[in-house]
């Protein structure tokens, strides 16, 4: 089986196409800012961006001009405020960005229906809310057992899903610990999958703990090794969430010119993530390392011959 290891530049160039529906998933944890920046850098256009929480990465991508539409369930900078670049193109009469909105469970259910090749997924949300009125894809469905009505959401099948993970082998067998979000569902739902990892490991490391594998190589098209590729998001056991960055983004993103300047300096002005990390500086990087290790312990699978 051949290696799928690729550079971020090649993976994005080969696998992300103008007009695609792209999901860079990861719920606060493991958000691939490195992939988002590369998509901006390569000036992809007319993308439909799907994410439960668009977060700063989609604020930057919308500011970078790659997006036509957002599919989401919570639009904000958690604990800080709004996503200001997105607000500029969604508020008032000049709103230009198309929006398709769900709740968190609705988005998870959409990915799950995609991952399971189901025509819909049922859930108890939405009844007596205004969400189905503004999103005609949220539809009522009667239980075939005569016990009432629930709502359904349709499958979400991204053209490309990007997930970040602690580690994978060269075939793309991928392991994650800490928050899992809906990364597994988003990956299985997609046509093409890019996995970005902190560390490339031997297959034997993966196979020593098969219960830890969340995505098998069979659904993965490219493995990109990009340490610190999730910053300012975080990677459990590797680095902390850079809350300072999340706070600093607020005043930058409130001003279109400052935002453009930031993109020029930190995205277009850099060749990739390695330069980004160098520019961030040793001190900042070091300050985000965990204060101490917290080892999982070992379990024994046993040899059975």
């Amino acid at each position, binding site marked *: 089986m051949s290696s799928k290891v690729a550079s971020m530049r090649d993976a994005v160039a080969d696998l992300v196409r103008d007009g695609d529906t792209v999901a860079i998933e990861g719920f606060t944890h493991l958000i691939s800012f490195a992939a988002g920046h590369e998509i901006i850098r390569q000036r992809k256009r007319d993308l439909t961006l799907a994410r439960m929480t668009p977060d700063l990465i989609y604020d930057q991508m919308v500011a970078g001009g790659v997006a036509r539409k957002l599919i989401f369930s919570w639009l904000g900078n*958690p604990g800080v405020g709004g996503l200001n670049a997105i607000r500029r193109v969604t508020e008032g009469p000049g709103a230009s960005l198309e929006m398709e909105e769900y709740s968190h469970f609705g988005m998870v259910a959409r990915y799950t229906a995609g991952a399971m090749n189901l025509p819909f997924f049922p859930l108890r949300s939405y009844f007596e809310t205004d969400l189905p009125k503004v999103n005609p894809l949220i539809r009522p469905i009667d239980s075939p057992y005569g016990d009432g009505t629930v709502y359904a959401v349709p499958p979400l099948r991204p053209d490309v899903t990007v997930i970040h993970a602690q580690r994978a082998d060269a075939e793309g067998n991928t392991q994650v610990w800490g*928050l899992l979000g809906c990364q597994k569902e988003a990956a299985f739902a997609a046509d093409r999958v890019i996995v970005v990892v902190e560390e490339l490991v031997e297959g034997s490391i993966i196979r020593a703990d098969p219960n830890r594998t969340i995505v098998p190589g069979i659904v993965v098209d490219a493995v990109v090794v990009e340490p610190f590729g999730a910053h300012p998001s975080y990677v459990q*056991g590797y680095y902390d969430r850079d809350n300072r960055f999340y706070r600093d983004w607020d005043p930058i993103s409130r001003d279109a010119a400052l935002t453009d300047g930031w993109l020029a300096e930190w995205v277009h002005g850099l060749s990739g993530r390695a330069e980004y990390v160098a520019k961030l500086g040793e001190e900042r990087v070091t300050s985000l390392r965990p204060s101490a290790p917290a080892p999982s312990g070992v379990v024994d699978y046993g040899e059975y011959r």
Partner: protein
Amino acid sequence: MSEQRMPAPAGPASASASGSAGGFSRTEMMIVAAARALAGQRVCFVGVGLPNIAVNLAKRTVSPDLELVYEAGVFGAEPARLPLSIGDPTIVTGATAVTSMLELFGYYLQRGLIDVGFLGAAQIDRFGNINTTVIGDYAHPKTRLPGSGGACEIAINARQVFVIMRQSARSFVERIDFRTSPGNLGGAENAARIRREQGWLGSGPSVVVTDLGVYHFDASGEMRLDSLHPGASLDEVRATMGWDPRIADDLATTPAPTADELRLIREELDPDGMYTK
């Protein structure tokens, strides 16, 4: 958004607030009152923002056995610090269980295992229906708010819903601009019928804590002011609500924050004042 600190109140509030030391802000009072409302509860779903600090304060005071559930996929979190976001590595390390969000929303929340869902809101009406989606028209909003996140499903599936929010004429409104999360709908009778018919496991909104007081819901499903915070007045309450509020006959005064509560907020949970300033 910095708030004026007020001196510890004189009179009954001060008497009951044993150990209250020096002044406290209205936001601090709100957080403390919300935390206290969690006494005796077992499993709490923690929302982003003010619920996050209130629930973490409760776990350090009135409810040490409280199981914190984060929608990010954590059951039994033991955060060593107060996270800025509700997804943070500190809620994972040392937690009891970490699951996919499909399982968290399906097997925990929709299954009915959450005793209290703790939400913030941008707008609320007298029946506890909540808007966190838009101010103004949906297609061309005046203000685009974050949207539901998990709020819609928490409102439907958590056994009880607690709300924490500052009150103002713009937030406590006669008619919310968008119903993101159902409360008591048009009244208790209607709400109870729909919850029963739909097989919802939740019984809807239970407590609303603001910077001025604590509300519960009466038999008609409408919000009723049961406790006024020290330093707040009924005139202030009326001036910051879009309807004529129901007020309990035996209106209480909320005991002021204790020295320990204030110390936890200021020194341990929010030393940078992200939540309280």
